[in-house]
């Protein structure tokens, strides 16, 4: 049975606009560049309060908000890295619901506001390694995917979790293309144990505010030990299934992008090495490559998920 949960009125509509803006300005004053960045993003980002997490990578220098929000792969808005920042404002992210269905005892459709309100938000500073050989350090705001999974009570037969991005060609120019770069909508998937892992989160914000559209607003997946393309954006559906679900890049080029897509310096992409990476914002034109770590440096926490598996075969 599908339980439709009532959509709450977003806080921004209850709080008088003046007050709301004042509060933002106060926060912006504290953060320095938040307001400037907010206007640069061209959208009204709302502040989110989040607890610090022991799972954060605290020894890493954060990639600047400017770079995090202006160097994106989000092919629904174009293939250039700067295209999402330029075009993503057309996506309407409110109202927004996420349908959770499939092999679960309690299927539901959640309004994003409710998910935000009913979750203990945490700040998670994670390294993000793109399959193209560059990386960032991003302070996400979100909650463990496991929290949501427990709420819907998966059945014993549920082995995988399938995710789907919104399909709205009028609001996403890349989906209108006569020669689509990928099959739309974008789909991704995780094994249930990967989805349940405490490092796996659904992010609803970054740098203390709600997600900018180009970063996958209003809700996206972040799996820090996998290549960035696993982090599906603007999610509208999460399904629990028995068989390994199809994933977009794997459908596009199965020999280049596997289902697992764990960061692995020893398994090259067929067209480039994965041994090293360039950290965005580090060194400018004269950036030095740094070695890529197995599981993006999260091996201690996640390697046991894959014990006994040949990671060259299951790339």
């Amino acid at each position: 049975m599908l339980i439709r949960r009532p959509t709450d009125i977003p806080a921004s509509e209850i709080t008088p606009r003046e007050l709301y803006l004042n509060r933002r300005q106060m926060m912006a004053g504290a953060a320095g560049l938040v307001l400037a960045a907010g206007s640069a993003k061209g959208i009204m980002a709302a502040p989110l309060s989040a607890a610090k997490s022991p799972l954060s990578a605290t020894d890493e220098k954060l990639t600047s908000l400017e770079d995090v929000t202006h160097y994106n792969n989000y092919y629904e808005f174009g293939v250039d890295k700067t295209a999402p920042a330029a075009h993503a404002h057309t996506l309407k992210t409110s109202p927004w619901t996420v349908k959770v269905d499939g092999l679960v005892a309690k299927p539901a459709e959640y309004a994003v506001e409710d998910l935000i309100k009913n979750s203990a938000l945490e700040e998670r500073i994670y390294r993000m390694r793109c399959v193209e050989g560059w990386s960032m350090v991003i302070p996400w705001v979100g909650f463990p995917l496991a929290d949501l999974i427990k709420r819907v009570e998966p059945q014993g037969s549920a082995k995988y979790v399938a995710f789907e991005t919104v399909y709205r060609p009028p609001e996403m120019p890349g989906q209108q293309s006569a020669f689509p770069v990928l099959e739309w909508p974008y789909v991704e998937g995780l094994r249930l144990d990967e989805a349940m892992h405490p490092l796996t989160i659904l992010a609803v914000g970054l740098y203390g505010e709600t997600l900018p559209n180009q970063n996958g607003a209003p809700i996206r997946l972040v799996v820090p030990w996998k290549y960035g393309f696993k982090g599906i954006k603007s999610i509208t559906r999460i399904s629990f299934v028995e068989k390994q679900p199809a994933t977009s890049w794997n459908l596009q080029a199965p020999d280049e992008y596997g289902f697992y897509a764990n960061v692995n310096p020893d398994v090259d992409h067929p067209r480039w090495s994965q041994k090293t990476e360039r950290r965005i914002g580090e060194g400018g034109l004269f950036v030095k490559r740094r070695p890529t770590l197995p599981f993006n440096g999260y091996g201690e926490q996640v390697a046991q998920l894959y014990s006994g598996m040949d990671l060259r075969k299951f790339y």
Partner: protein
Amino acid sequence: MAGQASAQGAKRGFALPQVPKIAIYIVGFIPAVLLFYLGVTNQLGADPMRYLEQALGLWALRFLIATLTISPLRQIFNINLLRYRRAIGLLTFYYAALHLLTYLVLDQGLDFEAIWADIVKRPYITVGMATFLVLVPLAVTSNNVSIRRLGGQAWARLHRLVYFAAIGAAVHFLMVVKSWPPEPMVYAAIVTSLLGYRLVRSLIRKIVPKRRAA
């Protein structure tokens, strides 16, 4: 042949105001100077090295395409820019060399082990390197002394290698990107039509022998 064509072209060519050839080089190097300036002053976005690397490669391909449009322009539209072809061809080589240098020095940090692994293991790098190697003899012989020493016919035959360079460059661009985005496909289509034009023209000439100009 080139000399002959040039004399012929000059005779029937559309009268364009002539600019000194040095102007082609000066204008041609503006993108490179601008890119380096923006790169050093950190104005090339979040990933300046990658931007510079890709932009230089793209300009090399653009100049290569420009080189290949000189003949059709003259043959179809009677616009004669032949006297600038060498300059544009050499700009192709200079941009390809800068693109390669950016890859070797800024991208790979002269890590020759990684570079060698790239060349033998990554088809797009293999194709890119081969394309550059094809351009080298063309650049080295782009002077009057070489034309005289090789003889017009042999020189022209050698310079037909530019067709392979064009194919190599277009394929290199197609292979480096993920999936099939439009930009490299547009460039590949332009190269295909410029080479296709030559193929069709030479086939027609084989069937209908060319009438020599008196």
